[in-house]
């Protein structure tokens, strides 16, 4: 305390010995086919980690003192061993927050979940009305989600999350989402639409407009810590005051993704070989990947602001989201495609869209419904959300 330590954000940018928390997609299998699914989920990958391999990962997370994992998919609850793995994790001091479209949340499951302190649930919903939601997540998905929420509420589960990916079509429904969360004794969580996975195909038509983005920022400022964001809107800090949270990109530094086949990526929105750090099946397991992968070591070195260095907002937004830049074909050391100063839009206009990297791999159902394609998953958690500062 007598010397001036590095600010915490800078400490985090240099990386920690273990992630603060991580996202773990347990399966690419999903009953839905959301148009913006960040992991292009649908079909199960036959190389999926076995139950024993998953337990070994949990053992490692316990040793590394990773407090909790954000489990997603795919639809994680369709794995036959899902509840067994949840129990194994919580028995080993690894808390679980899982994202689901609600398909398996029966009254009995809801009662069981309500009885556990160590399990949190996020129901994915991308419209406050069936019309808006089902256009993105598929016909019937609104009713499924609402039924799951009702079961959780009836079982006495307080504070489960309603997780919404913000789009051009639902951003005007923010007050309705908030009212819905209040009605279910739940908490609203909104996150940013990224051009990741199948999201790359629909990003142009679904991402919020510049005007909507400003209104979204103002709404978030007005609601403060009552609405969770997974820290996903830190690129909006360029408007002025930072939003609650740490406002940094934690990819490979304090967060990462483990995918269903054990591949470790820098973040849930960066499923591409350029951001692949290793696999938990390799010698040394997850800990070795986390601590020694070349990719992560690079991410933990000070990053250049590049074209953004001379911008007055750079200290606030830090250039925005790496994955959003990558999958729209923008340089990683330049502005975010949704840069609040408009620099990203200008860069996009100059980009040759044919050269934009394709998300990989694709597990989409081979036959998507024609009228509406569907599922998105909630996955995506920046582990830094909800971090409170004790000094």
């Amino acid at each position, binding site marked *: *305390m007598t010397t001036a330590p590095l600010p915490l954000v800078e400490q985090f940018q240099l990386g920690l010995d273990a992630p603060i928390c991580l996202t773990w997609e347990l399966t690419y299998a999903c009953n839905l086919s959301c148009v913006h699914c960040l992991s292009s989920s649908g079909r199960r990958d036959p190389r999926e980690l076995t139950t024993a391999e998953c337990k070994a990962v949990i053992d490692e997370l316990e040793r590394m003192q990773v407090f909790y994992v954000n489990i997603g998919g795919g639809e994680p609850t369709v794995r036959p061993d899902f509840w067994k793995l949840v129990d194994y994790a919580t028995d080993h001091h690894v*808390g679980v927050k899982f994202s689901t479209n609600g398909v398996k949340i029966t009254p009995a499951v809801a009662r069981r979940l309500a009885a556990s302190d160590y399990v949190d649930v996020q129901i994915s919903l991308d419209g406050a009305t069936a019309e808006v939601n089902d256009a993105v997540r598929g016909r019937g998905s609104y009713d499924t989600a609402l039924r799951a929420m009702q079961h959780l509420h009836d079982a006495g589960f307080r504070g489960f999350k309603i997780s919404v990916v913000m789009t051009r079509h639902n951003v005007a429904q923010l007050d309705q989402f908030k009212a819905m969360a209040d009605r279910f004794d739940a908490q609203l969580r909104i996150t940013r639409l990224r051009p990741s996975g199948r999201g790359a195909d629909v990003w142009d038509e679904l991402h919020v407009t510049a005007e909507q983005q400003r209104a979204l920022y103002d709404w978030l400022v007005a609601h403060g810590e009552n609405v969770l964001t997974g820290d996903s809107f830190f690129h909006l800090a360029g408007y002025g005051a930072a939003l609650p949270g740490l406002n940094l990109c934690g990819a490979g530094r304090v967060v990462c993704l483990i995918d269903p086949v054990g591949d470790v990526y820098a973040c849930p929105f960066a499923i591409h070989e350029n951001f692949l750090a290793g696999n938990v099946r390799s010698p040394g397991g997850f800990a070795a990947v986390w601590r020694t992968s070349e990719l992560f070591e690079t991410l933990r070195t000070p990053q250049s602001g590049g074209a953004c260095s001379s911008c007055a907002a750079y200290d606030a937004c830090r250039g925005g989201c790496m994955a959003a830049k990558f999958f729209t074909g923008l340089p990683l050391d330049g502005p975010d495609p949704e840069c609040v100063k408009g620099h990203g839009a200008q860069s996009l206009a100059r980009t040759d869209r044919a050269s934009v990297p394709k998300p990989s791999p694709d597990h989409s159902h081979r036959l998507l419904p024609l009228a509406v394609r569907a599922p998105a998953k909630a996955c995506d958690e920046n582990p830094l959300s*909800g*971090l409170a500062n004790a*000094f």
Partner: protein
Amino acid sequence: MSTDLSRRPRFDLDTAWALSPQVSVRPERFGALLYHFGTRRLSFLKSPVLRTVVEGLGEHDTARGACLAAGVAPEELPRYQAALATLAGSHMIGERS
């Protein structure tokens, strides 16, 4: 992440405190990360000394005693009092009866 001092609850340095049984502490080079499994909140301690204080709370009759045992100088106590008040406000630590 600025904290409004006027909104912090008062913290009594002269009563007995302890880390909540639902909280895990992970040592870090900057101090420690805390996670409360009940509230599902993360917090962090920005110095190793503060971590020693927090981990020692349960072994001392007063929070002041835990601070002094950890090597906190008397003139630094107000800062630690403020940090402990924040932790009490988020239920990371609680009063022992």
